[in-house]
């Protein structure tokens, strides 16, 4: 078991009181396998991802539970030790790359920086690695992309840059939080292809978080369904699709089942 979350609870302090946003969540990701976490907005799935990486906003606190990565409880590590884990063991790709990238530096610089933080490498080497990674991710002119600033990138390009940043440290586990939903359909397809390609090539594990149960069932081997902070159902994708037990799962499957009709209305 690569990552094992047990009984995790996260609370947020708001003006009207405290809110339990993650309630007693238990899930696990095996080495080399992909777990899909499905839930609607507000279900707490993004908070869960941030909690695993200990990147929660100040108002949120982990009140109980454990996050065990390769026999180490991440919640017990110091911030310095945690910084080593992020990027090198576990990395993350967020939903909106343009807000995750620093507008003051070129993409090449930012990606190379991450590389140098985790490996001892010269500026030149790191830069070359960054450009090579851009090429591997399908960016059409990696050299000039590396020289661009984030605001000059299109959505698809920016997302690929973020994936490059996440993969460069050769992590074992990638947490992808809704990585393509802000993109146009054909670009989404391209970026997903590339992400899936790279992650499987490197034999990485992935925690794919999404609101789209179709996407998750198509890509992952295991699935967990989250609602209002709790995991209501989890298991192998095949089992869940053929025989969901929780009504919420059934509802999600029904809602997603907008079939493309063989004959459209009225013709």
């Amino acid at each position, binding site marked *: 078991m690569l990552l094992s979350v047990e009984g995790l609870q996260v609370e947020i302090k708001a003006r009207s009181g405290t809110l339990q946003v993650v309630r007693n969540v238990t899930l696990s990701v095996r080495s080399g396998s992909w777990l899909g976490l499905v839930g609607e907005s507000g279900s707490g799935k993004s908070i869960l991802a941030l909690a695993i990486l200990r990147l929660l906003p100040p108002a949120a606190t982990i009140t109980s539970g454990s996050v065990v990565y390769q026999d180490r409880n991440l919640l017990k590590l110091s911030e310095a030790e945690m910084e080593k884990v992020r990027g090198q063991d576990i990395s993350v790709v967020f939903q909106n790359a343009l807000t995750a990238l620093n507008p003051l530096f070129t993409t090449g610089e930012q990606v190379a920086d991450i590389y140098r933080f985790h490996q001892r490498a010269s500026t030149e080497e790191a830069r070359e690695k960054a450009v090579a990674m851009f090429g591997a991710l399908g960016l059409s002119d990696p050299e000039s992309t590396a020289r661009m600033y984030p605001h000059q990138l299109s959505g698809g390009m920016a997302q690929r840059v973020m994936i490059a940043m996440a993969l460069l440290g050769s992590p074992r586990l990638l947490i992808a939080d809704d990585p393509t939903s802000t993109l146009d359909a054909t670009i989404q397809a*391209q970026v997903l292809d590339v992400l899936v390609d790279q992650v499987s090539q490197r034999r990485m594990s992935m925690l794919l978080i999404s609101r789209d149960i179709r996407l998750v069932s198509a890509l992952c081997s295991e699935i967990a369904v989250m609602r209002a902070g709790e995991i209501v159902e989890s298991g192998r994708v095949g089992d869940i699709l053929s025989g969901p037990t929780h009504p919420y799962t059934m509802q999600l499957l029904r809602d997603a089942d907008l079939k493309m009709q063989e004959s459209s209305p009225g013709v």
Partner: protein
Amino acid sequence: MTSNTLPRGSTPFLEAVDVRKGYRVHTAWTRFASITAVEGVSVRAWEGKTLAIAGESGCGKSTLGRLLLGLVWPEGGEIRFAGYPLAALRESNWLDFRRSVQMVFQNPLASFNPMLTVAGTISDAMRLRNDLPSRASKKEEAERLASQIGLEASLLKRYPSEMSAGQLQKAGIARALATKPRMVFLDEPTSALDASGRRQIVDLLLALQSDVGLGYVLVAHDFHLIGTMAHHIVVMYLGQVVEEGPAAEVLRRPLHPYSRALLAASYVPSARQSKWRIRGEVAQLPAGYQGCRLYRRCPYAVLGCQELQTLVAIRPPHSVRCWRAAEIAGTSNNLERKNDRG
């Protein structure tokens, strides 16, 4: 010239005829660049039917929407309402037009004035109605609309920021219905919603169409949505119509490489065309370029594609703007035979 499609009644309720609209963008202190958002586009929408416009950002669908709603004026071509050019409408007919065609927006939160309650916005939308003289009557009507679309009356008192996206989008539909329109322009009505919200909105829209006979112009990039609602599909890319035809046709056998890629991107595992991709990103082409706009991204591109492309009815009423479409799809013989069988 494009061919006509299944008319119910001979005049389309709302139509764009060869419209062109561009924008000037500031590129440097004294320089402007002209971007053509919509070029030579003709579409027809009928009462009681759904015309779907499929495309991604930059294809011109938002501009087309604004043109069809009379919010901006075309530089070339014209928009016709029940056969009459918009530009020629007199005052009272113009108001009639305004009442008859309304819009539902993509982002429900942005489409409501944050300073007004939902009830306030819906009542405001009734400005043009002659039959509701008092505030009280408008309020009653708003409540009636809310119940018609399945929105709790108590939610009307709230401000937009206090409602979920799904509830607010329902309110957006109630707002569009406030003028008793005959046609509603739906601009990506479900892309900001979750699966359950999406389902409710789609069910609601279909019910309204069958109960009230509303016509829709649906702009979307999700073919699941399009497949559920459309009678007729128009695919747009970079300001041009690249394919159009009856929904069943276009979904079953998309002819243009871009349509195929768009369809494939909706990853329905059973589609034969899954994993069919076009490369690269949408990019503005050099001014004066007349050829196929997908040229740089199309896997079938050859030198001849840089010539002017026109919409050709390969299997009327199904048309495509790609001279290689028949070739790509298989032999033209097969296509002709299928057409004979009807």
